[in-house]
């Protein structure tokens, strides 16, 4: 069968004048010696002749006009379609660009907020603002009282800060702090419970007493749900916010000998604590902390001399460097 097709191809090539001279010689010799091949050649020739003899059909006379009309119609519709497509495309492109710009702006804002919260922690964070709004009215009153009653001491203070604590165990924590203040002989403090579950202590005292108080407060740190320190710096109203602050960190700040040193330490701690908030091991550290004994041991006052504590404190306050710390204890998570 394949051989027949090959012979047919050769015969067709011969008919169509598509063979090389050598192929022509070969097939012509085959035709001369094989009558069947010769007959097949004539059959194929007649077939070709029949098709080739078909009359030539001519295109309709108006073909030119029809093509022109079709072209004009297409150009018209094409132009309209093109305009529409361009408009739609431009809208789509504009929409995509706006979306991209919005996404970029959003990303920049988010990144800026993160960077700002780390690099410039002195700004008040939203969380702190919420807490401040919550306690603002409460804090305002002691400030006012402080100005009226202890204006002289406030003016003299070289450290001014506000420690905002939140605890689920308000009664115990508040009692502990109240007792610790008394036992550390901080007589020049103004403290009052404004409402249930909220207490404000405005302390103005020497550095040693305040450090001792903070050292005592470290014992109940696990009971704090949150602890944020706001350190006031120049100009007034410009605060450094230290999240998740530990009492001993506050002691570290006030332990510095000058204003600049305290501010620098406060800033460093603000960055450090902010970074720690985002560390993955924080949960582990928190868990480790939670394993500490949760019992609160309230230190009892111990008299070490015949002097009354109040008298000693008053003398320190008048002669030493004054520190002002407002402690706001709020119940809740």
């Amino acid at each position: 069968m394949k051989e027949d097709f090959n012979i047919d191809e050769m015969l067709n090539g011969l008919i169509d004048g598509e063979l090389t001279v050598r192929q022509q010689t070969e097939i012509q010799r085959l035709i001369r010696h094989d009558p069947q091949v010769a007959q097949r050649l004539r059959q194929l020739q007649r077939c070709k002749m029949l098709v080739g003899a078909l009359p030539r059909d001519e295109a309709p006379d108006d073909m030119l006009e029809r093509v022109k009309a079709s072209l004009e119609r297409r150009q018209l519709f094409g132009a309209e379609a093109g305009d529409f497509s361009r408009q739609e495309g431009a809208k789509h492109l504009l929409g995509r660009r706006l979306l991209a710009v919005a996404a970029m702006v959003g990303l920049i804002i988010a990144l800026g907020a993160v960077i700002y919260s780390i690099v410039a922690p002195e700004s008040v964070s939203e969380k702190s603002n919420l807490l401040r709004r919550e306690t603002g009215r409460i804090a305002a009153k002691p400030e006012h009282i402080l100005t009226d009653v202890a204006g002289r001491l406030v003016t003299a203070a070289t450290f001014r800060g506000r420690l905002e604590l939140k605890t689920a165990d308000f009664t115990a924590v508040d009692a502990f702090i109240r007792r610790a203040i008394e036992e550390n002989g901080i007589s020049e403090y103004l403290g009052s419970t404004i409402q249930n579950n909220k207490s404000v202590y405005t302390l103005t005292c020497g550095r040693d007493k305040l450090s001792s108080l903070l050292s005592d407060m470290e014992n109940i740190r696990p009971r704090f749900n949150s602890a944020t320190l706001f350190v006031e710096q120049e100009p007034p109203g410009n605060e450094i916010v230290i999240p998740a602050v530990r009492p001993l960190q506050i002691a570290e700040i006030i332990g510095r000998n000058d204003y600049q040193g305290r501010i620098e330490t406060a800033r460093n701690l603000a960055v450090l604590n902010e970074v720690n908030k985002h560390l993955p091991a924080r949960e582990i550290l928190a868990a480790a902390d939670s394993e500490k004994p949760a019992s609160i041991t309230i230190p009892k006052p111990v008299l070490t001399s015949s002097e009354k504590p109040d008298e000693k404190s008053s003398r320190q306050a008048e002669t030493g460097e004054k520190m002002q710390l407002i402690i706001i204890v709020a119940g809740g998570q």
Partner: protein
Amino acid sequence: MRSETANINIDEAVLVEQCRRGEPAALERLIIKYQNRLYNVILKICGNPDDAEELTQETFVKILEGIEGFSGRSSFYTWAFRIAVNLTINHCKRGQKLVTRSIDAEDSEYNEQTKAQLRELLQDDGSPEPTAVAQNREMCRIIIESLSKLDDTQRAVIVLRDIEDMSYAQIADVLDIELGTVKSRLSRARSGLREILEANFQ
């Protein structure tokens, strides 16, 4: 026939360049020059005059729309016929079943005299006259309808070769197939056409 093709090749470069520049007169000349040849090939492949008119019109539109992108790697002549044949074969594939039924229904309408004449033409010892065939409308109808029973691609090859008188190389260019494929396809087409024609009087 060969000389006609040669004339097309000589003129086509100038004509195509003028058309690419958008000269309206050149576009008209192009249409006038090729309309009959394209229409004839299209009609012989699709078998329906109305369809052939539409397809010829569509072919010219596509040629003129695409002439700016015509690279010149092949000749304009084969490029134009490639568009025409592709459009026509695609059209045929869409309406193939309908056409076949129509031809089958008309088989019994051929008169006996035409069948006898066809038999003589296909005999070895006959001496057919092409003009006589062309003047016999019934005979032409049998041939065209027999052509339509071939596979679309085989029909296209045989029409391009025996009606348009293209060379094997040009057919390969138009159909975008190998030269060997043209030979085998043409061989099968002629063999198959003869069998179909013989079936008319057996």
